[in-house]
């Protein structure tokens, strides 16, 4: 039995552990329900537009044909990063809190194999959740608004969404190992998510007030939330070049920079978690 099989055992274990959580189902159902709600709202709006309402630029028919982007990118705004945080938050820490780390790590497995299995287990589960929301988003768009354009890009957008969400997933995973407390890890990650949105807004305002001072914009790009929320839109803009694309109007989005920032945060988080885990004792029950 090699590295891959031992890690794969932990991947399946991690799925079982995460799927035993009722809140995960609740959060996923809520995300899916909101997607449905959003489409119902749009459908009502398009079929019963308020008097005098007109869309500038593309026609209503062109907008309807791109509604899959709303379905696919919509959950990314809040729910997917939140689900990523919730999945990763207890990944390492719960084993310490419940005292089950002893049972697992007294078996023939290295710490790196164990951590790899934990990380990939949680990430693959997140990938499954994103696949669910993506599939539902595309299906709802088709169901409510008929044939969709450029829908062949859904798999690429899916991969970009998964890649983007690795940032908060990895960061929370790192907190989970470093703090060894699930609640603290989740709070720390949510704090960073909310904090970066808040600081990003302030920096944007400063940018406008200062008459376009680039420094504010450049700083805001390094906040974790900027790359996570913008990379999928940047990629979508790049792929769907049709001028009528109304949902991803982020011209000049720096895909390389956003991707690099996600990579930097992700790799740094994984390295910190691995160093902490390999170098320190397996603590007894802390819960």
């Amino acid at each position, binding site marked *: *039995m090699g590295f891959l*099989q*031992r890690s794969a*055992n932990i991947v*399946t*274990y991690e799925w*079982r*552990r995460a799927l*035993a959580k009722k809140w995960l189902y609740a959060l996923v159902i809520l995300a899916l329900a909101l997607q449905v709600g959003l489409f119902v709202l749009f459908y009502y709006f398009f079929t019963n537009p308020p008097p005098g309402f007109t869309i500038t630029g593309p026609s209503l028919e062109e907008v309807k044909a791109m509604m899959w982007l709303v379905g696919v990118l919509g959950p990314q705004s809040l729910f997917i990063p939140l689900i990523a945080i919730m999945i990763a938050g207890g990944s390492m820490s719960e084993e310490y809190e*419940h*005292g*089950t780390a*002893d*049972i*697992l*790590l*007294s*078996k*023939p*497995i*290295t*710490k790196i194999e164990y951590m790899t299995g934990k990380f990939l287990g949680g990430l693959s589960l997140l990938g499954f959740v994103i696949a669910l929301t993506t599939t539902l988003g595309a299906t709802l768009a088709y169901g409510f608004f008929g044939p969709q354009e450029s829908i062949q890009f859904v798999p690429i957008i899916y991969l970009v969404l998964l890649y983007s969400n690795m940032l908060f997933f990895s960061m929370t995973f790192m907190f989970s190992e470093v703090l060894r407390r699930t609640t603290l890890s989740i709070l720390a990650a949510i704090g960073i998510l909310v904090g970066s949105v808040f600081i990003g807004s302030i920096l944007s305002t400063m940018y406008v007030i200062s008459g376009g001072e680039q420094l504010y914009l450049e700083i805001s790009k390094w906040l974790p939330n900027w790359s996570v929320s913008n990379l999928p839109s940047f990629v979508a803009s790049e792929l769907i070049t049709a001028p009528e694309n109304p949902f991803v109007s982020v011209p000049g989005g720096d895909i390389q920079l956003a991707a690099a920032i996600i990579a930097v945060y992700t790799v740094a988080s994984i390295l910190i978690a691995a160093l902490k885990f390999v*170098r*320190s*004792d*397996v603590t*007894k*029950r802390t819960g």
Partner: protein
Amino acid sequence: MVNALASQQVIMVSNLTKYYGNFKALDSVSFAVDKGWVYGYLGPNGAGKTTTIRTMLGLLKPDQGEVQIAGVNPEKDPVQALQIVGYAPELPALQPFFTGEQLLDFMGKMFGLSTQDRKERIKRLLDLVGLKEWGDKKIGKYSKGMVQRLSVAIAIINDPMLLIMDEPTIGMDPEATAHFRNLFTNLSKEGKTVFISSHLLDEVQRICTHVGMINKGRIVFDGPITQVLDAFTQQWVIEAELKEVTKIMISALKELDYVQDVKAEGNKLRIELKEKKDLRGEISSEIFKHKGVLLSLNLHQITLEDAYLRALKGGQ
């Protein structure tokens, strides 16, 4: 595995020192356990028993010293070292979202057992630990005693050469305790090495072939159980109860060559001997010689508990 089969020494703990902050939990602990031994690791709460075990399993990093399991350092190569180890922790916490069967199956997978092997062993082990009817129930519904039993089953899922048990019978009812004592003894007869940490002296005296005693992080005794009583016996004592004790009788007993001292309390005599011999015949003859009426005469031999208490006080 090659090392394990070639060597008789299954556990080698050498000069192990472990700090928790400024607190020295283990202070140069050294001992060795050979194949086939049932090694009882005794000590009061907080003495360092669990710290020793967790360091032996590579869960804790020693500040000094080294552990080898069948010649392999578990911290450096846990895959090889722990392949032959079964471990049942003190008051185990098991994953409540698994059923007993699922958890045993998962643990079997971690040891690389085939599907067929796992299936057969799970059935046999659940029966062995008395959880046959509970195999398909979620562990979250188990009582503490049942979790303890399942923990023992997990510890032997891989048919380990070395079984490490931390307070294995805590939380078990007397019947289960007796059952598991027999199990450990039988495993030892099969040539397996059993390392049991316990503070239950009776349990250790019944099943162990060797004993290590730890107090305040230091080993205070390490050797065969047959030697432990002798090692901590300072002198043998005969206790006599008579109808009446006279001064002449006490003086006469004190003058005997093999008597160290005689202490009287009411109609009872405590006769401390110079030699570790059963001299009740000689003592009773002397008492009869002085018209004494003997009601009872007992040789007070040291128990493991006495030895243990003396060891903790540092007296050997």
